[in-house]
């Protein structure tokens, strides 16, 4: 399933990032992609096009390199960024079923962001918390020993948290 998000304009700070790499050529591509993603949370289409122009490389090449690496995202992060650990320990403890449950619940795949921009999903190889397996991490908060049932409740709690926060703000 492909979630199509609205086209965005280039982020204002993109030029200032590129300015740090004035004479950059192809060898700077990955550091540049990483820095842009760090600032924007993902690689937008305009950013990819602009990076290609800056490095004098075809856009297809930038996209090709970026899609090769799991670390790059092409959709903005959601309000809550969900990382699912698929390391060995978590796998043994059933993280595949947890991952499937999350995908079903959010109706998105890894690398995507839900249509309401509430959640984005990422698969990580090992999160370094094998003792808590299977583990997921939402906005840097770890949730230990999750099950396909418990993750639904956890996601729900974040939805409620967001609603409550928005009410207070209003």
């Amino acid at each position, binding site marked *: 399933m492909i979630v199509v998000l609205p086209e965005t304009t280039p982020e204002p700070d993109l030029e200032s990032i590129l300015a740090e790499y004035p004479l950059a050529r192809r060898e700077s591509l990955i550091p540049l992609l990483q820095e842009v993603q760090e600032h924007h949370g993902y690689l937008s*289409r305009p950013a*990819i*096009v602009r990076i*290609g122009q800056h490095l004098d*490389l*075809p*856009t*297809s*090449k*930038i*996209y*090709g390199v970026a*899609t*090769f690496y799991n670390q790059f995202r092409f959709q903005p992060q959601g309000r809550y960024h969900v990382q699912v650990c698929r390391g060995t320990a978590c796998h043994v403890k059933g993280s595949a079923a947890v991952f499937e449950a999350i995908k079903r619940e959010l109706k998105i795949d890894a690398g995507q962001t839900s249509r309401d921009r509430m959640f984005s999903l990422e698969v990580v190889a090992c999160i370094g918390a094998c003792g808590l397996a299977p583990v997921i991490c939402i906005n840097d908060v770890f949730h230990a020993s999750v099950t396909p049932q418990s993750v639904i409740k956890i996601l729900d709690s974040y939805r409620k948290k967001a609603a409550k926060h928005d009410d207070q703000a209003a």
Partner: protein
Amino acid sequence: MVTIEINGRPFEAEPGEMLLQTLRRAGVQVPTLCHLEGLLPSGACRMCVVEIEGQRGLIPSCAYPVTQPTKVRTHSARAVLARRTIVELLVANHPDDCLYCTRNQDCQLQDLVQQLGVRQRRYAGEKSRHIMDMSSPSIVREPSKCVLCGKCVRVCEEVQGVGCIDFIGRGSRSKIGTAFDDGLNVSGCINCGQCVVVCPTGALAERSHIPEVLAALRDPRKRVVVQHAPAVSVTVGEAFGLPVGADVAGAMTGALRRLGFDRVFDTSFTADLTIMEEASELVHRLQNGGRLPMLTSCSPGWIKFVETSYPESIGNLSTCKSPQQMMGAVIKSYFANREQIDPHDIYSVSIMPCTAKKFEAARPEMMRHGVADIDAVLTTRELVQLLHMHGLDLAEVPAENADTPFGERTTAGKLFGASGGVMEAAIRTAHWMVTGRELEAFTVDAVRGMDGVKQASVNVDGLTLNVAVVSGLGNACRLLDQIRDGRSDLHFIEVMTCPGGCVAGGGQPFGADVDAVRRRMQGLYELDRQESVRTSHNNASVKRLYDEFLGQPLSHTSHELLHTHYVPRDALA
């Protein structure tokens, strides 16, 4: 020289050359899928692996430079088994629809399955499933048939300087695609079709116009006319066992009539017409301080490339339409009028060595009063298919002459099929236009042959005309960059999108066989050597067209029908 032993026999190798090259010179056939003549090896497919004494693993011969005496075994049991296993793995996820595939019986993957005796499905993989890309007017991509050899990617970037496709993703999910995996039509693709020619499988093909042409031929209300480009007649015979480079224009004309075309015209006629207009435009620019260097405009891939990547050079492009479009325009004006046919009732087909011509014919500038000048474009390959479909063998069909009023051509127009031909024809006519005299020697050897960049200086009544001829857009990029950086000695530049010109076009037979390209080129030179009318301005039918209809080159009518304009394009290069 280094003496190496190939399968027990000594052979002299050039030190430093890749082993695959040595093997080919020795007449030893090692299969390849990813190898591209003239480019650096990629070593991706591993089909060319051989055993080399003292080396533990199998060695890809395409990427192994010969440096010292060694013993090579190309078809040891181990090497052959490795190749067969690779092919078995490649077909494991390949769609099994060979019978319905455009490349059936002309497919390198199928050939390898056959040669290596794969008779069982040892690996039952999940079938590759990708969305077909039918967005382009010229090229259809079917990534599920792709074996990821990467030749299309390398030709597009390294030869053509376009780079609109690349590998996307990785591992079992890898595929070839454009930036953001969008349609080819919104990418920087220039429709040249060089990717199609090098593709070993059915993953890339032209967008076929055969169904439309068949429908028109069966429609009693349509007057179906056809034109064929200069490069086609020296190519199409190959498919019928005739010598490579032999000119079969006569038999092809006869066959086209048997297919049901009402009129058979020769695009070389409008190549002559193009020269009248283009040489006049050049002389006009030279004498009136116009923008120089003037760039030729016959090659539609090149035109889109300038519009996309070098929009600042649009003013340098000749405003002349290509011969295909000039023919289209005079068919639906002068010819329609002469024959008292409503242009709406004419169905105009062209046979081109080119996929970009399909795009060109669909450009909105190429329509007048809502009627397209060209209705369908068939590649050389599609022509072969059409002939086979109707049981026509060019070796059997008697030669016939093309139709008036657009059937007469000179050898100058015919030379358009080879890189340098437009230049040579233009020089002949420009010299005559400026001096009123013919050149003493018509042949300009410096602009002939397969070199990607050729230059010449021609003396026209004391004025030195500096010209350059480039083919392959990578070469064109480098020249345009020089001009952007201040190079100013050139007056006129011929650019052909495909390396070697139209004889190596994207609509020509699969395989990018450089030797065949050279022989097709020789076929055109041979016509120029044998025939007596060698200058476009001496084409009697062209003169008549000017007398009866156009007036003179660059006239108002000429401008309306034979010239065009270009638009900067925003595309993701």
